[in-house]
């Protein structure tokens, strides 16, 4: 398959996939090496970014994903109105932040940081699949442990957890 065709195929893949797709996976289907795929994707990305196309390619959660140009957000929001998923509440954000940095973490631990009950928020975050239950803590009552999901990375457009900014206090301590 010639190069142009390979690029088109990658473009079509990313278009069809709603989740981030790994270079290795694309490589397997096209019978290319992951390096070749990465090079092709970089080319495509570059091209789309430079010409400010409506569709861009992003590096997310260890893979690649198509999305719209950030500058278009206001127009698109107007167009889709209420169709977009509601934003997270501040309480949800706080809770997510605690889970992201402290995972795996129990509900009691989260609540002791926030100073309020969180069962409701946790339930919501679980429903939205931004967090998941990752097991039980070996402690009295064996409480559930919470952690973040791939959807969490996607929601915030993070490549992986290491991309989280260091917590203010931690950096001071360091």
């Amino acid at each position, binding site marked *: 398959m010639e190069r142009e065709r390979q690029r088109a195929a990658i473009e079509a893949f990313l278009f*069809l*996939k*709603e989740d981030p797709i790994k270079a290795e996976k694309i490589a397997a289907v096209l019978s290319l090496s992951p390096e070749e795929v990465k090079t092709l994707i970089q080319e495509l990305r570059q091209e789309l970014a430079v010409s400010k196309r409506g569709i861009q390619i992003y590096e997310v959660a260890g893979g690649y994903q198509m999305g719209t140009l950030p500058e278009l957000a206001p127009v698109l929001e107007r167009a889709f109105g209420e169709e977009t998923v509601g934003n997270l509440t501040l309480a949800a954000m706080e809770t997510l932040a605690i889970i992201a940095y402290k995972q795996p973490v129990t509900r009691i631990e989260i609540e002791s940081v926030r100073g309020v009950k969180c069962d409701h928020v946790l339930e919501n975050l679980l429903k939205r699949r931004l967090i998941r239950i990752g097991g039980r803590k070996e402690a009295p009552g064996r409480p559930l442990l919470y952690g973040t999901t791939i959807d969490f990375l996607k929601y915030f457009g993070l490549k992986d957890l290491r991309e989280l900014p260091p917590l203010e206090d931690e950096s001071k301590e360091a």
Partner: protein
Amino acid sequence: MKQATYTIKLPVFEGPFDLLFHLIKKAEVDIWTVSIAEITAQYLAYLQTMKELNLDIASEFLVMAATLLRLKSKLLLPRPPSPESSDNEDEIFEINSPEELFNRLEEYRRFKEAALYFKEKERQQQKIYLRSTGGQKMMLVQEQQSYYTFWEGARLLGEIMRSFAEAAASGDNKPVITAVDDFLVTDKVEFICARLECSARALPLSAFISQKGLWELIVTFIALLELARQRRILLLQERPFGAILVSLNRTDAKENLNGT
């Protein structure tokens, strides 16, 4: 039952017209000049070859054969000046003259060719993948009902109830239990009907709930069930798990009022 009929080899042809059409083509003659006797003979020969005749599905073919035989016999007789008969046009195979048969075959042929056009379009279209189907080819709506009505299955009850609960819970107010039962089912029935009466289109469940509390919710639900049971309303849904809409059953409201 219906599946079992496919054990015979008939479905190669889509019907007697299709078979006739095939026979005419095989004879390689123009549809206008082919001898009716010739087709009839071929047709009967074909029927002969069907050893294990499934009568259910073959009945149409047999009727066709009978029709052809009758036409053939008519051809042997002088034709009456006015062939007045075909008033009861419920009969698919009521064919009175070779011209009529030819006309109908000709009409069938046109659509058969149109069907080939569609087949080709389908083939082309299936090379295009859409995003909505997550990498599947287009149109994965396989078993979608255009709408459900309440009586079409108790299995839908759960879904309707869930939709109802969702409609009720949307908005920030959680249902509050109040002691005052200021909602009566009869009142609510009237309210719902009045609301539907002045609305040209179907309304979502939420249109009937004012977020006043759990009791009202229950009453509304019962009222809707009651109205559905009396067939005074229709519950519509465009697709499984889609929003449920309520509309007045305008078509046969009167009969149903006496129905219960």
